């Protein structure tokens, strides 16, 4: 499966509310495979949402297990179809960057603990409780499914001054 190009703002798909997946068929499996390949190809990337590769469907992948922020507190690779946040609590601020908004970072406050329900590619329903960086990453990717960018959530005017070659 190919690594797909990550769309950058102002591509209109990035500000669009995505459609729910109705049936998990071959094209959805291909989409998930492309999302995974694209995530693995991005340096330090911990997630990709379908609209970022040009598909307006509610599908995203998240894997923070290789990131220093997510090590020891994660569910490994998550392929999420039609994810819904059932519960959220707490608040944590992280300085976020996004592959679809290059050269800009900003402080974003998000829930610290979330319970999220979604379908896996096999068709089964799964519910997990995530905390810390994994919770942040899931919320960031799920925002993409609603056409929301981290720019819409920045609460602090401090912005990053540097373009980063590699995230840690």
């Amino acid at each position, binding site marked *: 499966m190919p690594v797909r190009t990550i769309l950058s703002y102002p591509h209109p798909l990035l500000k669009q509310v995505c459609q729910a997946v109705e049936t998990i068929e071959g094209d959805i499996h291909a989409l998930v495979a492309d999302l995974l390949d694209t995530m693995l190809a*991005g*340096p*330090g*990337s*911990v*997630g990709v949402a379908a609209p970022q590769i040009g598909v307006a469907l509610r599908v995203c992948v998240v894997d923070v297990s290789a*990131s220093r*922020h997510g090590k020891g507190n994660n569910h490994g690779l998550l392929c999420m179809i039609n994810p819904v946040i059932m519960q959220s609590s707490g608040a944590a601020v*992280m*300085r*976020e*960057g*996004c*592959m679809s908004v290059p*050269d800009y*970072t900003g402080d974003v406050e998000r829930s610290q603990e979330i319970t999220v329900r979604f379908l896996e590619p096999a068709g089964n329903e799964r519910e997990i409780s995530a905390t810390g*960086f994994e919770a*942040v*990453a899931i919320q*960031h*990717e799920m925002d993409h499914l609603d056409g929301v960018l*981290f720019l819409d959530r920045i609460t602090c005017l*401090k912005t*990053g*001054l*540097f*373009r*980063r*070659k*590699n*995230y*840690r």
Partner: protein
Amino acid sequence: MTHQPDIQHYAVSVVGKDRPGIVAGITEVLFRLGCNIADSSCTMLAGEFAMILIVSHPRPFGKGRLFEELKPVCEGLGMSLAVRTLHADETERQEAGGEICMVSVYGADQPGIVYRVTRELAGLGINITDLNTKLIGTEAEPVYVMMLEAALPDGQTPEGLEALLGDLKKELNVEIGVRVITPVSL
């Protein structure tokens, strides 16, 4: 910013008593001249409003023209004005390889807090990317707060930096903390 040989960049700074309309007044001139605001930071300091802008304009265009056009507006608003032409190597975006840290320093007000801390950082080759200071507390017990963001050279750690600032912390009797704020890529 990538270097474009046909584009000239200028550093413009404007400071004056705060009031509504300063930003609109300055940017109206820039807009009329066809200037781009490539980067900017503007904030209130005490009762002053301070604007620092990196402005670009296609050649041919001169610093003199920019200054002369901004001058009447600044005089009308009672603001100081400075314009400087940037060299090509000043307009490149820098890249940070190491950690980005927030260094917080606070304690009883005394002369030299900013100097002593930043001298240590400079000696370690640490680049300050943002810095704010504020005098808070009461007249009887003034407290000085300095928050700065800094890019550590590759190999330096926040814990290491905090340890290196330990002696200064004792000497000045202030709190010094170092936290990682390196952005996460999502």
